[in-house]
């Protein structure tokens, strides 16, 4: 390839915060003291906290330099499978920062917080419309908390019928958070193997579904980027035994405006606003994980719920069967504003188009790299495609070596070694906001790396060469943990 994105810029060294600064510096404009000091019992205080003192310039330089060691979507393509690293529109951030939203106290009386309540009420409606469900809660602060909320709803549903259940079915392609969330509700996860096509067969669900089983957790499209084609039949089997179908909406970005989750047989579904609805990932949060349900689960939704009466919005606690609160207040409102802004900007037609283009981009990559890398499931994919390192293993080059080398070419690596059903998995999710040019560059980079694997494997074993640090000794870091300086 002629020219790669990756190059070596000037990276500045920067010490740890407490290796900077001098005692007595302060970067803060202390508000004027206009009242007298009030005595405090001596044993309640033991002096100022042990924090480094820095000037404003110290702080600004420190974090600016740190930021330059990071790679974000704004810098380049981030094809991290199952994470939907799409572009984060800047307007959304600006609107979330409006004084009325950013400075609002959560316990303001309802008449003084109508705008926020209206926004949440409308957002619930939008999410319900997009998914084909009946009602929603916005409280869960992240996808995993959404999963937990979904499990609590299932638990409450079965309990209300006087028959709590003990097990839950989880496909082997599921995110690790699925079994972990189920276990928090006391459910024992029962693994269901996917078939040779990479999806669930109705038979294997029928073989394990019984009246002790609360339901099934299905990610559809699944983590191999494949649509679970037997989902209707699977839902029928689960429902027949009194179970519920939990939909993990992590991959909703593939099917907006295309699939009706309710019609598909899903009873409860969580969404990741930080994936499908464009809110920034923030280096690992804050996210937001709303949960949508069908009518029969609505009575169990968390309180308080926003209700509309006579043109006014109020928070209602009047839901006797509710599972209670999962958040002290109403969830990550700042993230909700961003998702609301995204949906209002896109409208139904553009959301559908976003899904189509996400799927188009993934299929284009799949075709472009087929033959370069081993493709374990050669079928039309959804928003992501999964390759493996089978071909490169001959040259003693593995997935990790190749994706580390990808950094030198100026891309963030895809998700690797997941899903577990594929050895040495390379899971690529480009998202719809990447253009054809960008994707062509990625394909070229991967082809160049595959060539390097044959010609000069050592180069890959030593990659990356252009980052702030080289490969970290992760085993050593875990053996002798140093978590605090």
């Amino acid at each position, binding site marked *: 390839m002629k020219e790669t994105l990756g190059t070596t810029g000037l990276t500045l060294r920067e010490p740890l915060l407490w290796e900077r600064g001098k005692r007595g510096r*302060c*970067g*803060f404009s202390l508000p004027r003291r*206009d009242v007298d*000091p*009030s005595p*405090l019992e001596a*044993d*309640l205080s033991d002096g*100022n906290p042990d*924090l480094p*003192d820095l000037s404003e310039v110290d702080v600004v330089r420190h974090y600016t330099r740190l930021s330059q060691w990071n790679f*974000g979507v704004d810098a380049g393509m981030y094809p991290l499978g199952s994470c939907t690293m799409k572009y984060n529109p800047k*307007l959304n*951030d600006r*609107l979330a920062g*409006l004084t009325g939203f950013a400075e609002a*106290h*959560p*316990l303001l009386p309802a008449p*003084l917080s109508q*705008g*926020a309540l209206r*926004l949440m009420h409308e957002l619930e409606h939008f999410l319900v*419309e997009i998914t084909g469900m009946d009602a929603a809660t916005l409280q869960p*602060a992240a996808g*995993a908390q959404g999963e937990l909320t979904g499990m*609590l709803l299932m*638990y409450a549903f079965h309990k209300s019928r006087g028959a709590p259940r003990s097990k839950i079915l989880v496909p082997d392609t599921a*995110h690790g958070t699925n079994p*972990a969330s189920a276990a928090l*509700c006391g459910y024992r996860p029962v693994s269901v193997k996917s078939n040779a096509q990479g999806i669930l067969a109705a038979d294997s669900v029928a073989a394990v579904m019984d009246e002790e089983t609360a339901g099934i957790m299905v990610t559809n499209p699944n983590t191999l980027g494949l*649509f679970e084609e037997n989902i*209707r039949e699977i839902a029928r089997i689960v429902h027949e035994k009194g179970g519920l179908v939990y939909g993990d909406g992590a991959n909703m970005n593939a099917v907006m405006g295309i699939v*009706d989750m309710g*019609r598909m047989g899903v009873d409860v579904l969580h969404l990741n606003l930080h994936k499908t609805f*464009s809110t920034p990932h923030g*280096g690992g*949060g804050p996210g937001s994980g709303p949960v949508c349900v069908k009518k029969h689960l609505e009575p169990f939704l968390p309180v308080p719920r926003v209700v509309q009466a006579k043109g006014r919005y109020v928070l209602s606690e009047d839901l006797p069967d509710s599972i*209670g*609160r*999962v958040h*002290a*207040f109403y969830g990550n409102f700042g993230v909700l504003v961003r998702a609301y802004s995204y949906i209002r*900007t*896109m409208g*139904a037609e*553009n*959301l559908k188009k976003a899904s189509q*283009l996400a799927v188009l981009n993934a299929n284009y990559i*799949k075709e472009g790299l087929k033959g370069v890398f081993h493709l374990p499931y050669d079928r039309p994919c959804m928003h992501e495609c999964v390759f493996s390192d089978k071909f490169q293993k001959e040259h003693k080059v593995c997935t990790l070596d190749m994706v580390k080398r990808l950094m030198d070419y100026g891309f*963030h690596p895809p998700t690797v070694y*997941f899903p577990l059903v594929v050895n040495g998995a390379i899971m690529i999710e480009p998202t719809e*906001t990447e*253009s054809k040019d960008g994707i062509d560059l990625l394909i070229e980079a991967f082809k160049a790396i595959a060539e390097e694997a044959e010609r000069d494997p050592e180069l890959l074993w030593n990659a990356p060469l252009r980052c*702030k640090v080289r*490969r970290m000794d992760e085993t*050593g870091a875990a053996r002798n943990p140093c978590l*605090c*300086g």
Partner: protein
Amino acid sequence: MRYLPHTPEEITSMLEAAGMASLEDLYPTVPEDCRREGEPDLPEPLTEWELTDLANTLSATMASSPAYKVFLGAGSYEHYVPAAVPYLLGRSEFVTSYTPYQPEMSQGTLQAIYEYQTLVARLLGMEVANASLYDGASALAEALLMAVRIKKRNKVALSQGIHPLYRRVVHTYLEPTGLEMVELPYLENGRTDHAMLEGIGDLAAVAVQSPNFFGCIEDLQAVAEKVHEHEALFVTSFTEALAYGLLKAPGRQGADIVCGEGQSLGISRSFGGPGLGIFATRKAHMRSIPGRLVGQGVDVDGNRGFVLTLATREQHIRREKATSNICTNQSLCALTAATYLATLGGTGMGELARLNRDKAEYLKGELVKAGFRAPFESPTFNEFVLKGAPGFRETYECLLGQKTVAGLPLEPYYPELADHYLMCVTETKTKEDLDHLVKEMKA
């Protein structure tokens, strides 16, 4: 559509490469009976300018300073945020990156979180802190679940001085686990009645908040001794992190796990979220900690670097046996807190905390002079409970009309505390504001 870069020609050529005829053809594997009938019923798309108008209209309905004087705390606090903090946090390298799974490309986030863990541990007097949890409420629930795992006992005790909404979240988390939750009442002085621990056996943990929901500073040392007599873990919680700029750290008073809300540390209130779940403990319990941890290490050249570590506790490896289902932190909020703490420094934080307390004490004193009662006599930080005369509710409503929110009525949370209000004063209120409030409340 400005977020979708594809031209019609590009779409055609890409479809061709993928062997498809049209965008509608992209879903051959989706069965007919899973497809939606018709478009979702969503409003028509808005331009950037129309949407800005709409958002401005909605935002303008919200009561916020300077138009409103809001004396509400109760888990969400109004503090000044220096311009440098949101400026640095707006850097898109921090905002638009993912969880730092690839350390070579995320040293910025990793070092910043390692520093955050260190600052938090120092502030709370603990040995190790995690990379943060969702909020103060879920941090408390996770602390109790962790204590149950360590102690292998099925009962926990919570003070009624803990934020009532936090206790409700804990209840939601504990409900399906079969764990028993008992509450410790509060005394006439506003502190937790830890003598009630006598007679409760087999406890995994006892949780107390300080300053508690009434603003009262608990005698943590005394509670710790009682809790440790029971061989239970002592969990301390907080909603106002700034208090530890002044108060003795819980880690130096016998706490085994310290958890709470870090919103005060430079994070906007944002109608209650996102917040910051702070979580710290002793080294001995390091491998039982829920959530992410960043550790210091070296790269192949021996240079210092940072990585996510102790992943063997996590869902990727342990699945249903993981220490928790949490697979993120509130990274950007943790970074905000670290930036804020770095800006203040130990000296600045001490002075700011004292100013908060002094202003609250001034208001308390003036209100008592004006005939109100401060029923709980324990020392307080920047919040305190006030008892109004039976007719005060009308004055309160009337003040709302005059753009003053004179505290939080406690009756919905504590039915026995009718006519009681929780007042909060931070550095954002001037003496003039406080004098004005007293005058209005007296009227």
